[in-house]
């Protein structure tokens, strides 16, 4: 059994953009893996002119938000570090083994790596994410720069979303059959790591051993 891996293009984000960017990406992936009956929910990003789709499941949303909070905590502790979020989908081979999460019973069949490079910018804003697109700064040049940068990030984010779509399109065989689905989505977990985090490397190694050789994608 293969574990397909998708490395998403790295994005350079400001602190206040982290939440939206992550939400957008995580939900888009999850929507493609929520093959149960869903009523999709369109969500407009506040900082970018992008609409993404949630699968409309409250539990998933909550889980994702928690993970994003963790991630942001981490970013605050280790600023200017490349951080990675990994969204892994797995199947549980033996339900009785679910208590021991690292056991072989979890079969990972797909992993998505979201790469964020969090950059520090002159503090014109508080860390809140609820800024409207039309932020008017007293410093004209600063806001111009910010706008230009944000436009660039928006198109990069769009690229990432298309990268997700393409991946989903090209790789369908490894997705478990829908009847195996228990709930809206296949089970998944979200893990966070920094580039220098050795524990993460170990974790990856373990996982590889458990699930066979991941097929590396572009």
């Amino acid at each position: 059994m293969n574990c397909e891996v998708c490395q998403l293009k790295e994005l350079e984000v400001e602190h206040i953009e982290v939440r939206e960017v992550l939400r957008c990406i995580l939900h888009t992936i999850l929507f493609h893996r929520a093959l149960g009956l869903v009523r999709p929910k369109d969500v407009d990003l506040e900082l970018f002119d992008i609409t993404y789709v949630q699968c409309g499941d409250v539990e998933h949303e909550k889980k994702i938000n928690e993970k994003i909070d963790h991630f942001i905590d981490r970013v605050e502790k280790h600023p200017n570090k490349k951080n990675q979020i990994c969204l892994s989908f797995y199947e549980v081979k033996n339900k009785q083994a679910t208590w021991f999460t690292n056991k072989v019973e979890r079969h990972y069949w797909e992993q998505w790596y979201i790469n964020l490079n969090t950059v520090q910018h002159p503090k014109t804003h508080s860390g809140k994410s609820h800024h409207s697109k039309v932020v008017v700064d007293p410093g004209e040049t600063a806001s111009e720069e910010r706008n230009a940068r944000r436009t660039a990030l928006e198109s990069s984010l769009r690229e990432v979303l298309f990268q997700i779509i393409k991946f989903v399109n090209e790789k369908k065989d490894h997705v478990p059959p829908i009847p195996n689905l228990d709930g809206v989505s296949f089970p998944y977990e979200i893990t966070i790591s920094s580039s220098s985090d050795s524990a993460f490397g170990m974790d990856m190694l373990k996982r590889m051993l458990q699930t066979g050789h991941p097929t590396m994608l572009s």
Partner: protein
Amino acid sequence: MASNHGNTNSEPATNEQIITEFFAKSLHIILESRCPYVSSRNYSGEQVLSSPSSSSSSSSSFWPRDKWFNLALKDCSAALENIDFWRQSYLEPMVVDVVLVQRTSNWDPLNCSPKRALVRNLSSKERYYWNSENDEYRNEVMSEKIIERWVVEYESKKCSNIGGGGGGSGTGSKRWSSTSWHTLYKKSTLLLRSLYVTVRLLPAYKLFRDLISSAQIGMYNLGHRVSSFVEPFTRTEEAEMQRFVFTPVDTACGRLCLSVLYRSSISDVSSEPSTPMSPQFIPDYVGSPMADPLKTFPSGPLPQGSPSFSHLGRRHSWSYDLYKASPPSGIPSPSPSYSESHATFAKPHSYRLPPTGVTRHLPDETPQEHVKNTNYDEYSPSPNFSMSPSPSPPTYTPGIHISNALKRSESAPVSIPAIRASGIPPLFYNQMLPPSPPLRPSKSSLAKMDCRSTLLQAGSTVDKIFPFGKDEAGRLTGVKISSNSSPQKSISRSSSRLSFPDDYDESEFSGPFVVDEDDMTDPGSRPGSFDPVGNPCGQNDHVGVSAVKKSQDAAVGALVCMLKKAPPLQQDLQNSANLLHGSRPEILKSTTMDPNQISGQPVMQQSAAMSSAASLLAPKTTADALEELRGYAVMKNSLLKQGGDHKHT
């Protein structure tokens, strides 16, 4: 659906069903996010249906068809109506064209004002104001551009045991068939998820969203065609488009293909020459529950260029004010931004001579602000300044405006757009001519105008004169966006029938608009909706404003460009002076000064200034006319006398 079809006979049937449903679902997904009428209607309905559900608990709130591919969609009547054909035969490709309908920059006098009137009648104050800008484009011809072409296709091949969907191919027919439809179903489900996300990432979705948020009311609309054949693009067209091909899903006997050709930059499409930065216009928007009020209007198909239009045009010069007075009645309350912009824009009015209609209606019916707005509108659109070759100092511009205003005041505003159109029939033209003598000069001068450049310049000139124009623009933009008022939706409802592909050929497509115009042509029945065609000037200002919509910086840039390109104005000054029958350089000069002096002053004072200017100028022209008439009378009398003399002798 969920039952497992073990036997080989039902296998093809299941596959067929999946394929058929795939067609239906694809169409549904596409139209749901491209057909404004459908979605806005359902946004409200949706909430009833959707209960926050975790997992599968809430299946009771889902329609049976939602269970197909486990994707619950909003209601989309357009999709349901169009899918029948492919339910019969999925072997035909399904081509869904998403069409952007907007104005081109060709003037079409016959299309002029009535629709605008319609929009205004429905709108709230700020919407009205915003619309008045768009209305300028109603003089233009609608154009359609395909911005997306979706192709859903089932490529069948000879049935064999090979290729029954990805993983489990070729292990004996029985095993193959049991995995087959599951695989097909799973893969098509995945494909549809991708489609659902993709549809929202393509540029056309932004247009759609703007439409349903009513921010773009009247600027453009999205339509669609669903057909089974491809009308190929030209090479240039195709070169402008990008293709996204979804990975086909293999079935036992063929494969399901889905692809889209789309314009990567809709702004290219939407910003035609006269509409610098924003997608312009369209006539039929489709819409919302609010549409109903519109339906109450009497409507019937009206051939373009119906005589009633010219009648309308003529009435304009005075019915104008009637209209202006009425908006408040249909409108809850003026928003702050609206009135603000109003006041500033109104300033120019002080220089112009009020039309006779104004003086008539103003005291009792029309609030001062409205009157001024009217005046301003009349004044700004004047085509004259675009043509003048000689460079003119900025200070003169106001004077020029004044002269235009003067001419305008005498002539029916409607005549301007009509004149601009080169192809206008003389008869029509004559009908629009105002009775008073001073008009003739204006007619001739107007005739040579290049209307499009005029538009831009008018807008830019205004900004030049009034530095606060930019801010205004920003505010207006805000107004436009924030106002979620119903009018747009209602209108779209009426025109929604356009979007049904069967009906969708060009002639039919334009039909509803014509109908709307017809509705509007009876000013008596709906005075509020009756809108001066002469108004274009106000709209011109808004051209600049609309351009600003996306970003103020960009807008400023655009304005600067326009200003740079603007032809000199001085000649117009001369013309206008002539037009006024030597009505006096002194007057012009004094009026020229006004903008600067007045700019900071309250609206009331401006109106006073305006009326004084009017009093100075108006008597002159009418006096001239009288003079002329008297001259003719004298001549006639003398001729009669002579005739009598001859007879007697």
